[in-house]
């Protein structure tokens, strides 16, 4: 019953976030602030992770394709598919559930604990619209981060192969092999679904938290736990619907 109650409350929160809108100028300002906090501040960690994970993926592919009958182009092909289909959209989203999700839960949770949300309500402001809606809009730029992750993951693979001694021509030929643009579409659809989850689930955990400073930490942990689980389940559902 507890989970059903939470699911209902979560959808009501989303409905309220999109209703009784605050002034446009205020929302614009908030959206730009959120783009900075959620998107631009995440580029560095996503770039570093993608680059090195791309390198590791290609090395492991090379390790498993030692058979001389198998073409070296398969390394580039497999790396590209892994990065585009799973690593960039899903793995990065799980990392973002920790990075962005914890930030959202703790910042909204702290506002709850210090009565800042009550202050907004007393002023007659729809606090959910003011706090959650700009995050949802800012996360529409999340595919931009995933594009960087895809690009750097493949480049990381290329560099690792060059250092390992695999000819870069084979790798480049591999990443161009049997390219299906629908896989990119699939990947971006997933990314947008995850972006919505990343903006709203941590907001829910922060907004409805109760207690003091210690509970803000607990809410952040709970938020990461649930955001990751929801992302993994939705990943399966979207993949089943779009690729199966």
């Amino acid at each position: 019953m507890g989970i059903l109650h939470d699911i209902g409350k979560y959808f009501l929160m989303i409905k309220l976030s999109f209703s009784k809108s605050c002034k446009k100028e205020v929302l614009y300002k908030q959206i730009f602030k959120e783009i900075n906090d959620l998107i631009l501040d995440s580029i560095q960690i996503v770039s570093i992770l993608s680059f090195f994970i791309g390198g590791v993926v290609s090395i492991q592919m090379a390790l498993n394709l030692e058979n001389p009958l198998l073409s070296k182009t398969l390394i580039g092909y497999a790396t590209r598919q892994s990065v585009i289909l799973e690593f960039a959209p899903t793995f990065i989203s799980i990392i973002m559930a920790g990075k962005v999700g914890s930030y959202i839960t703790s910042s909204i949770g702290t506002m709850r604990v210090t009565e800042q949300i009550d202050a907004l309500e007393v002023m007659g402001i729809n606090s959910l619209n003011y706090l959650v809606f700009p995050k949802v809009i800012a996360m529409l730029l999340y595919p931009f981060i995933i594009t960087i992750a895809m690009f750097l993951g493949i480049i990381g693979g290329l560099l690792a192969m060059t250092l390992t001694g695999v000819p870069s021509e084979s790798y480049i030929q591999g990443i161009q092999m049997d390219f299906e643009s629908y896989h990119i579409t699939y990947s971006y659809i997933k990314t947008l679904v995850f972006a919505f989850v990343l903006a709203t689930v941590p907001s829910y955990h922060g907004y409805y938290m109760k207690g003091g400073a210690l509970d803000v930490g607990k809410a952040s942990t709970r938020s990461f736990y649930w955001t990751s689980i929801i992302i993994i389940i939705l990943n399966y559902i979207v993949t089943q619907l779009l690729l199966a």
Partner: protein
Amino acid sequence: MIEVKNIYKSFDKTEVLNKIETVFYRGKTNLIIGQSGSGKTVLLKCLLGLYEVNSGEILYDGISSKNMGINEKLEISRQMGMVFQGSALFDSMNVLENIRFPLDMLTEIDENEKNERALKFIERVNLKDAIEKLPSELSGGMQKRVAIARAIVMNPKYLFCDEPNSGLDPKTAIVIDKLIQEITKEYNITTIINSHDMNSVIEIGENIVFLKEGLKIWQGTNKEILKSKNKEVDDFVYSSELLKKLRV
């Protein structure tokens, strides 16, 4: 003026307020006092419209809270200012931005006018030198003054203060109490302060409502409370050893 008529409030089966009947006067500092758990905060939240009462009504200058539509509620809530116990300032905004915030959110006036109005109240609470500072750079007393300025920047008819001097040293607490009283007179506001601080009661209690276990036990002024014959009031007022000694 706010009139409270026979209100009753419970949470599930727990009765929190029972048949509260009282008046909070315009231009006066009205205090709600009582021990922890007496129902002070719930009464304040009912007056703020954050809690719906189970029965009875609240009249805001004659306008009844009963059967009030969303727009009427919004209209009343925009005539209210609130000073929270922990100040509730927005961490990411400096003093000027915090005070300007209600103007940015709720008015259509131009930027210059907003700044002028905010600066007027910043000067009123003596924070001219702290305009650019963030809440984390301010002392507790300064934070309370910012909260007061933010609460009155929209020229509210009703000002609510929840334990405005909690966490402050006695001297700063008196400064904050006096500031609230001065502002109440200056802008002719109906101010309602939730407190259990006897210093506040003695300093600024022009109309005091004493609650115990959800019931209104006593109502009067700061002069009357010190001479009250009511045993429960007497126990509360003279609960400290210092006041007991002074009484003798």
